[in-house]
């Protein structure tokens, strides 16, 4: 009789990548619905464009690498990248924006490095940064939340803006972004930065209608919805709590300090937490299992670093939001974090 020798771990969780990714879709649903409620049908068109581009590019890359197309498509990672990118870009951006971004994210950032599990950088965020650097105007032209916008766009109107740049009635994106007072309005974070640059205090800046009760009309609810989805992911043990907690702390603690010492010149921690891409970043982007740190302690440090970088870039950087840059910069530090936080194996080293 032979005894089968098996190395640890002895108990597995039988969950395939496909199932993990399916939970990610489910968790994204509340955020997506909220985003659509506030920013209209454009979100859905961006999603459709991103997913179809991802499908084509993934198939082409697999072809070039001599693999079968099905094997790549089955694990759904390309789909998640496409969805994250589609959520991050302005909902009425021209169609070629999302196509270029997704093609770069899948084709270059993911497959050039060797496909699933081999990429150093988060594909969705690298695609986002490429777009932000190349087309800063289009990438910061978020439409107004439907509640304070003068225009109501139907499903086909949104398509018309995305594909031709004009609504059937002949309005372009710039006109659609005007508030009732005829001024174009930026996102809450963008407006705050401009106001601070014009020597206004935070109190004065917050008078603009773009800021709702908590942290910016629309954005606060989008962020809360992503938070809800993120909690579901943690409950389902798809992601561990270390990275999101680290990132939120890394952002909130410096923000709170700055706010306590200079309340007129710095953005409140609540505003930091509930505006821009904070929650999406903390729960869905920074937690990418491939490009984040591996051990739990490492993940905590990784999260703290991302959060701190978000604070630094939002406060002193050149761009209004910072999650994409912070995640990419932290991705670079992952090998060194992993090296110094490697847990000691049972029976080896340690204090005796």
């Amino acid at each position: 009789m032979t005894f089968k020798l098996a190395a640890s771990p002895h108990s597995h969780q039988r969950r395939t990548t496909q199932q993990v990714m399916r939970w990610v879709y489910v968790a994204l649903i509340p955020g997506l619905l909220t985003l659509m409620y506030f920013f209209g049908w454009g979100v859905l068109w961006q999603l459709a464009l991103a997913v179809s581009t991802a499908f084509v590019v993934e198939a082409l890359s697999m072809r070039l690498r001599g693999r079968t197309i099905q094997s790549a498509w089955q694990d759904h990672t390309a789909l998640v990248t496409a969805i994250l990118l589609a959520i991050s870009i302005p909902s009425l951006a021209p169609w070629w924006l999302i196509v270029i971004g997704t093609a770069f994210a899948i084709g270059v950032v993911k497959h050039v490095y060797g496909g699933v599990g081999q990429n150093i950088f988060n594909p969705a965020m690298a695609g986002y940064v490429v777009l932000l650097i190349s087309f800063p105007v289009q990438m910061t032209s978020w439409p107004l939340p439907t509640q304070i916008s003068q225009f109501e766009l139907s499903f086909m109107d949104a398509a018309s803006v995305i594909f031709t740049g004009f609504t059937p009635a002949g309005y372009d994106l710039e006109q659609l972004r005007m508030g009732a007072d005829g001024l174009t309005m930026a996102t809450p974070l963008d407006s705050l930065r401009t106001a601070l640059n014009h020597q206004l205090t935070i109190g004065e800046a917050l008078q603009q209608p773009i800021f709702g009760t908590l942290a910016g009309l629309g954005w606060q609810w989008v962020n809360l919805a992503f938070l809800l989805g993120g909690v579901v992911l943690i409950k389902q043990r798809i992601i561990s709590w270390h990275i999101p907690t680290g990132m939120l702390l890394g952002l909130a603690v410096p923000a709170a300090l700055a706010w306590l010492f200079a309340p007129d010149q710095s953005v409140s921690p609540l505003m930091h937490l509930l505006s821009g891409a904070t929650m999406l970043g903390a729960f869905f982007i920074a937690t990418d299992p491939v490009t984040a740190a591996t051990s739990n302690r490492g993940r905590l440090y990784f999260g703290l670093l991302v959060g701190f970088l978000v604070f630094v870039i939002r406060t002193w950087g050149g761009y209004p939001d910072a999650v994409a840059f912070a995640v990419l910069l932290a991705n670079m530090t992952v090998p060194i974090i992993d090296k110094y936080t490697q847990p000691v194996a049972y029976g080896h080293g340690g204090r005796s």
Partner: protein
Amino acid sequence: MSYRDITWQGLWENNPALVQLLGLCPLLAVTATVTNALGLGLATLLVLIGSNITVSLVRDFVPKEIRIPVFVMVIATYVTVIQLLMNAYVYGLYQSLGIFIPLIVTNCAIIGRAEAFASKNPWQRAAFDGLMMGLGFTLVLLVLGAIREVIGNGTLFDGANLLLGDWAAALRIELFSVDYPLLLAILPPGAFIAMGFIIALKNIIDQRRAERASKPVKEVTRARVTSQ
């Protein structure tokens, strides 16, 4: 080393930009357009030929211990000459290349050739080596410049008249017109990415060549000597 070998080494096998990865700073900084790439490539080529010949001629009189300062002085002299010539004859290009003309002095490809080849070979071969290495460098600059200009701007040879005179304005080709240039391709990150792809392409070609060169080994059929 035969002239044929020198050609092959300079243009492909030991290409300063693709294999030795020398002189990356100007390579990445000025290749936003084909014209800039050609201008800097030619300047580097001329400096390389001049410095190689001079270094080769004085190689027997320079003490080993101080050879590097001497080589640098020789290179700096040629760079100054080229810089003044460009200032006089192609002023527009001189302005658009800016600091990168004097920085040719620090291009490691040049001091590298002076040390590795010119200081050990007769002047004819050194001159030929400078020509081939310079050509190899220029070709990579041109390819990189063309890729970045096409992707970023949709044009080729934009501003060629700055380098070649007024007739060259006709060289400008507009492949497609873009409302919003893809800034990434024109900015330094685009240069790094494009350079990565060019090096990868060269490696693929080398791999294919190696596969074709290695002849299939003849299968030896083994005779069965035991029966079990």
